[in-house]
């Protein structure tokens, strides 16, 4: 057992962090989006592509980096830390994994893509007819727009296939977080390319990987906003001393640190479980989402510690809180996932006992 990152993993983290800090600092990148701008492929995206950060999950035999979810989580955490708006989760995780599952491996190059994943327990939102045309709709699709290539899971008779359409009917949904784009995808008899059949459970597995990477993204945002609050607590003086010397403030920040480190462990385990094909893989992803609302409290605490300054539009704290709130409602409320984890806990713990 070894839970420390390898030298290569540390180098990947540092490289992506430096690239994002240089090409897309929060003030120049996330701020304009919050003011109503829209993201389009930019120099940061080209840098990420150049670093291989879009191809992390593409097999080496297909020209990708041939890495796993542990590395994907490392990149995702940096994207969240930088509040980067590029559709990295949609392209580098959802699309690469979905296409791979359909037997039509996809290498993003420097392009963008998204997958119209249904929420858990729901059927795909699309139907492929005998003439090879696709019809249907899906709300809250991550990365659509701006995705150039849209991958739609569609029913063909009783089987699920993955089809691709280029630049079809996406409408951006206004959301709490301007740095994460969600949209409604609707097509009506659109021509498409059939990529292949999706085996049973394949969509759930893709969603699990997206959940793990999205949790890592939110973790990065949480770490960044906590660091802002800690720094503030060291330099902001009231009553003749730094506010960070007050125990009430210290305990708030330790509570936030506790949440951050718990999620860090959860991400580490879930990413490893995905790569290792461990039996707890699915459960590990569900747990991350079950904790999503608690992770958002890191943003709440940071704003509390920042005080009046943190409640202003000018301070960046709300940008991070918004990113965390986006994660907390992604693919449904955290409470639904708590119920599902509870249902599994109820079953598995008893079977463990019977095994023993």
């Amino acid at each position: 057992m070894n839970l420390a990152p390898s030298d290569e993993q540390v180098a990947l983290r540092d490289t992506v962090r430096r690239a994002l800090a240089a090409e897309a600092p929060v003030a120049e990148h996330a701020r304009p989006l919050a003011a109503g701008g829209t993201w389009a492929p930019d120099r940061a995206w080209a840098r990420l592509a150049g670093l291989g950060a879009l191809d992390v999950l593409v097999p080496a035999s297909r020209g990708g980096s041939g890495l796993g979810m542990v590395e994907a989580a490392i990149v995702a955490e940096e994207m969240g830390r930088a509040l980067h708006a590029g559709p990295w989760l949609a392209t580098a995780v959802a699309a690469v994994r979905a296409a791979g599952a359909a037997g039509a491996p996809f290498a993003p190059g420097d392009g963008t893509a998204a997958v119209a994943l249904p929420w858990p327990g729901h059927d795909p939102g699309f139907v492929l007819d005998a003439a090879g045309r696709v019809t249907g709709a899906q709300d809250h699709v991550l990365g659509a727009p701006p995705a150039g290539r849209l991958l739609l899971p569609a029913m063909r008779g009783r089987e699920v296939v993955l089809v691709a359409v280029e630049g079809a009917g996406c409408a951006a949904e206004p959301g709490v977080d301007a740095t994460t784009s969600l949209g409604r995808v609707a097509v009506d008899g659109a021509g498409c390319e059939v990529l292949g059949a999706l085996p049973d459970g394949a969509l759930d597995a893709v969603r699990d990987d997206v959940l793990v990477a999205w949790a890592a993204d939110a973790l990065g945002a949480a770490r960044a906003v906590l660091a802002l609050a800690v720094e503030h607590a060291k330099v902001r003086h009231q009553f003749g001393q730094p506010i960070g010397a007050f125990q009430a403030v210290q305990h708030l920040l330790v509570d936030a640190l506790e949440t951050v480190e718990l999620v860090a462990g959860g991400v580490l385990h879930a990413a490893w479980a995905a790569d290792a094909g461990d039996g707890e893989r699915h459960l590990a992803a569900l747990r991350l989402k079950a904790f999503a609302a608690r992770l958002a409290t890191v943003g709440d605490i940071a704003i509390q510690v920042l005080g009046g300054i943190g409640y202003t539009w000018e301070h960046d704290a709300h940008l991070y809180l918004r990113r965390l709130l986006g994660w907390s409602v992604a693919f449904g409320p955290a409470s639904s996932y708590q119920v599902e984890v509870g249902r599994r806990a109820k079953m598995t713990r008893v079977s463990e006992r019977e095994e023993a």
Partner: protein
Amino acid sequence: MDFRLPPPVLAFRDRLRAWLAGNLTDEVRAASRRRGAGDDALAVLRAWDRTMADAGWAAISWPVEYGGRGASALEQLVFTEETIAAGAPTPVNVIGINNIAPVIMQYGTERQRRELLPRMVRADDIWCQGMSEPDAGSDLASLRTRAVRDGDDFVVTGQKTWTSNGHRADWCALFVRTDPDVPRHRGISCLVVDMRSPGIEARPLRTLTGDAEFAEVFFDDVRVPAAALLGPLDGGWAVATSTLSHERAGAARLYAMIRVRLRDLVEDLRTAERHGLVDLDDPLVLARLGELDTRLAFLAVLCLRSISGAGDDASGAASLAKTVWGELEQDVATLGHDLLGAHDPGGRWSVARLSTRSLTIAGGTTQVNKNVTAQRVLGLPRR
């Protein structure tokens, strides 16, 4: 990055499992649950420690020359996970084995090592640790029990309290003030005190559950031979903070215990469900269960990081893990009591609801622990 155990450690686990399966009886498991509840349970626990010692499974963290196995951190981790999952008792002298014995090995005389260590590990002698005082709880460095040198003896006067097994102990690792004129952390020493010495009175102190797990201990001009000094004179603070311990996987105890509690809770809930007493399809109940399961899974990784990690990450993770553990085990007990307390008044969930209050107090309160984390990990200023 790998959560898997290497093959030699898996083989170690299999040997331990097989031994536990052949030796751990229901009687021992029952005594383990009734820890501190009475002398009959204690007798069973002592016999179990002897059985473990005879088979070479006691004090595995100790070096081989003192009867241990010199076990690696991962072997200690597996040992902790397996013994707790199987319902085996914690050693009667767990504090002695982990915290006091390493000091005896480092600083003790040859005679102390030879006479004290084997009897400690077999629970032939019971050990307590004299730390807390009425006015020195979380603020241990303010302790006032004093030891004054008089010829070949120290003369000890003062009072300890909340001393686990204090009323049953044969020996006490007693922390005393030997120099009142230096900064308070520097004037503390540790003495190995024979609890049958004249002038010692130990009064069992009932905890809020009604059990007598600990005691208050009074020292009235107790003469202790100077040779009983353990570690350097006035160097007791390092001894108290157990920097010498061979225990590397103590954090595994945290999540392993809660795993068992949560398993017990689910088992009791399902039994109650069969009798129509609780509705386990209630989403409110499932959500609480799911939240506990999630926090437990994340805590386990935090503990593993504190065991397998290095430097800052390890110590930061360890202090957070203790905070998370205390509150999580309290929350498991609270759910158990909420759902089952009405149907089993005085039963194990009522007791757990009460007894788990100690978990955010003993060994340093959660609030003090948070102060330490704020200052050491986040780098926030002291007042």
